[in-house]
């Protein structure tokens, strides 16, 4: 599979993740990992900040457009682009240790959560930092499982 096809595959995975999240939330789960972000983190870690930010922007748009969508439209895209850019800064030459992947994913997953908290603070809303922190931790756990195989697929490495 060529590099461009792998980007499209990552975007499709983000779409599937976004759909799964809204469907699971509709069944009563209030804390769900940010599944649409995980392919962004994987490609950013293997390709760098600019491709990471571009894929983050596209994946954020997917999340914002899957009903019921986000408000304001485009906020998730900007936050995912920042997260992808940050994760891309964690790219290293050679195999990536799992603890490094986890650390980068933790920092990048915190970006959308922190952005939404700031947006809420800007609007004068009550904030729920404990809920946001739980969401980041759950996303990190999912990232530890899902991101390394995606990096392997994108870089063609046998092992991390």
């Amino acid at each position: 599979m060529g590099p461009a096809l792998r980007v499209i595959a990552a975007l499709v995975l983000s779409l599937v993740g976004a759909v799964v999240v809204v469907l699971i939330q509709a069944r009563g789960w209030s804390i769900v990992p940010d599944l649409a972000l995980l392919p962004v983190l994987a490609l950013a870690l293997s390709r760098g900040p600019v491709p990471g930010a571009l894929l983050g922007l596209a994946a954020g748009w997917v999340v914002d457009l899957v009903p019921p969508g986000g408000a304001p439209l485009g906020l998730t895209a900007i936050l995912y682009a920042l997260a992808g850019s940050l994760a891309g800064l964690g790219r290293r030459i050679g195999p990536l240790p799992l603890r490094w992947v986890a650390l980068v994913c933790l920092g990048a997953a915190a970006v959308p959560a922190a952005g939404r908290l700031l947006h809420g603070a800007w609007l004068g809303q009550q904030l729920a930092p404990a809920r946001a922190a739980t969401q980041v931790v759950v996303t990190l756990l999912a990232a530890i499982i899902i991101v390394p195989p995606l990096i392997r697929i994108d870089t063609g490495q046998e092992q991390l």
Partner: protein
Amino acid sequence: MTARTLSLYALVAGVLLTALVMGLDAARPRAGLPEALRAGGAAVMGPVLTRVADTFPAPPPDAPALAESQARLALAEDRLRELSQESELVRAPHLSALTESNHEVVVARVVAIGAFGPAGPERVTIDVGSVDGVSLDQSVVAADGLVGRTVRVGSTTSDVLVLGATDLVIGARGVDSGLLGTVSAPAQGDLATGSQGELTFTAIAFGEPRRDEDLVTVGSPDEIPFVAGLPIGFIHSVEEWTGRPNVEAAVTPAVDIGRLDVVAVIVPEGR
């Protein structure tokens, strides 16, 4: 021009375009471009969500009947209130304009729940749309009370802005005290705590809301977006009265938005 330079240009253009759409959406509700994008997203993904949601376990057999009963009960109570007022103010000329209530109730299932705000989910998607007679700004109820109002209607799905969303402020009346006010998402410094799903009731006149008092919708002109008499919740605690108007109280919503399944859209007469 290298691939890296091209990527940078694409990123800058994408971010600028996104910021433009975000600004339009934040500045004006239902601005043309953001709504067109949302409608496009719903047209593509709505049928997928509905199809996947149909594979989930069916709701309890009595759930649709309960949701419909609640909708019809609220309408009947509102009609009763209207009749009572008619008897007291029979000579008032504007009462002649009252007509028989002839609402339609469209039962639906929640197929998707969006991002969470400070008081829980802010938008949900239901599996009915314009082909079912649903249109913008209609009340959505569950068996226990008000859920929200429709803010985007596609052909087969609709998005509902739910109770507790930042953009939703509802006119409310205390059933016992008759005190009028608004119910909204809790702001910083409010008595209500959003993390527990509570909302804020703010009285608009002098008076003290009563603890455990039920709140219902005041209603809107032409019932757009809210039909009168729909249960919103009950007052959980009241701030200490300091002699000023705008007393605030914490409200426990009648409906647990995070566990919604079957709901009903109230289609007013002639829409």
